[in-house]
């Protein structure tokens, strides 16, 4: 409960800070709050608490581990976005919006009640609709917000309809009860349940931008301010995929056949389409948007291949991906524009940025010893163990395409002719953040089961 209170409290504090003339302390207060949150999570994980909040949320190990990741990412994000907040007039609104959407992520990681699923999705999305349009004088930003909102609202409609159908089929909102009653089968309408779950699946697939519900992603990612794009491709993605995992890890147990096939088709399509289209992009933001679709596909595949290690595989993949993506966006923010040519000769302009970007891209491409390698490795392992060698081969080939476009950037960094040869200056906070994130990516890759021993055991 305290994690939830802390996050919402921080949001409310940020909202009120402007009134009490405390603008200057918002940033340190938020960072301190998030550190406290990390401490709470670790404490609860170590103590093995299983807090049940009014039968709405269940804080067992998995939500706590995801919240831990969320807090770490949020700290990185706030440090990265510090300059973005500087020029904004309505500073506290932005802080509050981001913090509130994090509450949504928290709900999505821990819900056991369908209404909390819906609330989580909405609390997560609505602030992001606003943030996507926060560059008010930029038409693309407005377009992004508008597109995201319309399509997102539509998806929320599907979600709500799905929840209703499920309730009609089973007479319950509680995920565990839904699962158990549908296994027993007494007084349950299978058809209503299946339709309902499929509708929920589509809505969630929209949120995680799985193919064929991905069409909003590139435009929204490109149009939104870059820090917001970074936020969407890391924390929002984390929330959506964690919510997905929470529901379908239960659903898949009782109705494996229908949903496994659907999910496998969706995830394979997502991996292939995301990577193939990313290969032809020349705008880095767009490229990262499509590549994030491909990565979401891998997480979905991990979700589908159920085994005792699935929670860890999903968590590890998300950690590796979100950290690398955060690092990549961090570098992108420091550049002049978003074309790949902006990376030309970056190694001469700022070696730290070049190094971080290379590590991030190598990680996303799945090259050892970066974290991304073991992330993909674990997913492939589960896939092959489930006797789906063909799917593993497709995933491998698709990630080979990934290597192609990630290396376009690496080649530009190391051997491109620079257009603008001015050195790039970084603040000390940036430097610490970039070094820390690179070290984390490598450390996770060298000791892939350290987190397991620490958190999941």
């Amino acid at each position, binding site marked *: 409960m305290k994690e939830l209170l802390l996050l919402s409290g921080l949001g409310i504090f940020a909202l009120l800070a402007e009134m009490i003339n405390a603008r200057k302390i918002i940033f340190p207060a938020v960072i301190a709050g998030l550190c406290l949150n990390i401490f709470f999570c670790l404490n609860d994980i170590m103590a093995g608490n299983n807090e049940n909040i009014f039968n709405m949320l269940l804080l067992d190990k998995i939500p706590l581990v995801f919240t831990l990741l969320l807090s770490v990412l949020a700290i990185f994000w706030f440090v990265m976005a510090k300059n973005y907040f500087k020029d904004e007039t309505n500073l506290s609104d932005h802080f509050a919006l981001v913090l509130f959407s994090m509450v949504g992520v928290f709900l999505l990681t821990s819900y056991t009640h369908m209404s909390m699923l819906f609330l989580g999705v909405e609390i997560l999305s609505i602030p992001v609709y606003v943030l996507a349009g926060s560059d008010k004088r930029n038409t693309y930003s407005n377009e992004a917000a508008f597109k995201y909102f319309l399509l997102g609202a539509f998806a929320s409609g599907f979600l709500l309809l799905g929840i209703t159908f499920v309730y009609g089929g089973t007479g319950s909102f509680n995920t565990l009860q839904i699962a158990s009653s549908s296994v027993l089968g007494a007084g349950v309408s299978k058809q209503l349940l299946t339709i309902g779950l499929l509708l929920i699946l589509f809505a969630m697939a929209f949120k995680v931008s799985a193919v064929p519900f991905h069409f909003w992603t590139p435009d929204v990612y490109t149009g939104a301010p870059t820090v917001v794009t970074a936020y969407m491709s890391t924390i929002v993605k984390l929330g959506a995929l964690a919510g997905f995992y929470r529901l379908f890890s239960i659903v898949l147990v009782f109705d494996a056949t229908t949903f496994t096939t659907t999910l496998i088709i969706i995830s394979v399509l997502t991996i292939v389409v995301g990577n193939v289209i990313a290969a032809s992009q020349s705008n880095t933001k767009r490229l990262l948007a499509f590549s994030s679709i491909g990565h979401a596909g891998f997480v979905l595949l991990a979700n589908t291949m159920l085994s005792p*290690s699935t929670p860890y595989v999903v968590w590890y993949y998300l950690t590796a991906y979100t950290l690398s993506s955060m690092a990549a966006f961090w570098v992108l923010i420091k550049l002049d524009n978003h074309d790949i040519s902006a990376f030309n000769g970056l190694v001469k302009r700022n070696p730290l940025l070049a190094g971080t970007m290379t590590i991030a891209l*190598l990680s996303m491409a799945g090259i050892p*010893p970066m974290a991304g*390698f073991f992330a993909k490795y674990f997913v492939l392992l589960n896939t*092959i163990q489930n006797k789906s060698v063909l799917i593993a081969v497709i995933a491998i080939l698709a990630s*080979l395409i990934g290597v*192609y476009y990630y290396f376009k950037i690496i080649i530009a960094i190391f*051997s491109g002719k620079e257009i603008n040869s001015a050195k790039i200056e970084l603040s000390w906070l940036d430097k610490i953040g970039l070094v820390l994130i690179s070290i984390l990516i490598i450390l996770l890759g060298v000791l892939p*089961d350290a987190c397991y021993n620490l958190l999941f055991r």
Partner: protein
Amino acid sequence: MLVLLLLILPVLFVPILLLFSEKQSKNIALVAALTEMCVGFFAFYQYQINPTCACFNWNTIWIQNLNANFHLQLNGINSVLVLLTTLIVPFIIQSTFERDIKNIKAYLSLMLMMQTALVGVFLAQDALLFYIFWELALIPIYLICLVFGGENRQKITFKFFVYTLFGSLFMLLAIIYVWIHTENRSFDIHSFYKAGALLTAKEQLFVFIAFYLAFAIKIPIFPLHTWQPDTYVNAPTQGTMLLSGIMLKMGTYALIIWLIPVVPLGWQQASKYVIILSVISVVYGSLMALTQHNFKRMLAYSSIGHVGLIAAGIFTMNLQGVQGAMYQMLSHGINVVALFFVCDIITNRMKTDEMHKLGGIRNVSRVFSVLFLIILLGSVALPLTNGFVGEFLLLHGLFQYNTVVVVFAGLTVILGALYMLRAYQLIMHGDTNALTESFGVITVNEKILLACFAGLIIFFGLFPNLILDGSENQIKQIIDHVHEVTAMVVKK
């Protein structure tokens, strides 16, 4: 402990190297490589005396969930390759002396990192660790070629990278596949041997193909060689040396250790075809070398021919063939690095390596022409040079396998002499022209390096048993294991 030291010593020097000035960094790198060489020699020597010493084994738990261990071990086969790596890298680093290279510190650090990865590949006794080092070796060499390479390097290095990564991903698939069939889910090489032997013939064939793709691309074997000539020509000299001298031995070494004994039945079914492919590379590489005008490109093609023969010898799976391959790996490493150094000396002075533009260098620099000739004869496999021992054993092994094959493979000796002597004739003989008159004398540093190479070539030509005795036992074990498994199936 000793193996761990062997592994991390080069990388430990990287931060030290970065502290020094550009000029000093070359000396520091050389000190690093020489220290590593001493450790390498010591380990090799110790291994010959006391192979059971505990210092040759390092085993700690690495990833508990997957049952992967950080297991390094020095044994008869990889001690030769570790010897080769530690022996060659000082030469490669010294070849940067007297050359102007921008960002020399980064260049040298990448080389030292590469050395660690290469030693790791050879020492790893755990499949996952082997894979990690295998991939790890790719990143420094890719950056070396990308940042320091010649014209058009982006496209060429990219092709190289994707090609090799494509192969390695299939290897990863094969590793996972064998791993889920091991008894207690272990990546240990011996449990891989056990599990692989129990797979059905069809499964073994698929695993064989997946592994073969990775290794054949690295070596490279026809028709997967297309990345090689461009990459060799375009890479900086030291990059080419690393690639051809040591890195391709990763592939041939892995054939002996990680491919054939893991899936003996796969080998049994496929050996005919892979030997034919290897022999095609021998003939193809030699013929292509014969038609080249560019010296460096000619060396690249000749390398395809030589390593094709090594691979063919390994796939025969008899003692002479595999022992010959072991020896030829060592001597090819020395010879090809020496030849690329010769090529570097010529291009550094003449600014071209088109052979028909050169000629008559013999008249200008006598010492150079003598040393070049010795190195070249090593590559031609003249008796008393190291190339002879390896090729003789390889052809002997192939002869036991099939007489027709050996006729074609034997062409390497004739064609090798042909293209090498033709190159020598074009570059060194004839009349001195306006360009080659300016060749001048070679510097002391270059003289020392070339003389060392020539010395090594003759030394290993005279005392092959130093190497062959050490690896014989283990190779026998592997061959016995393979034949045992295949014989068992015949009985069934």
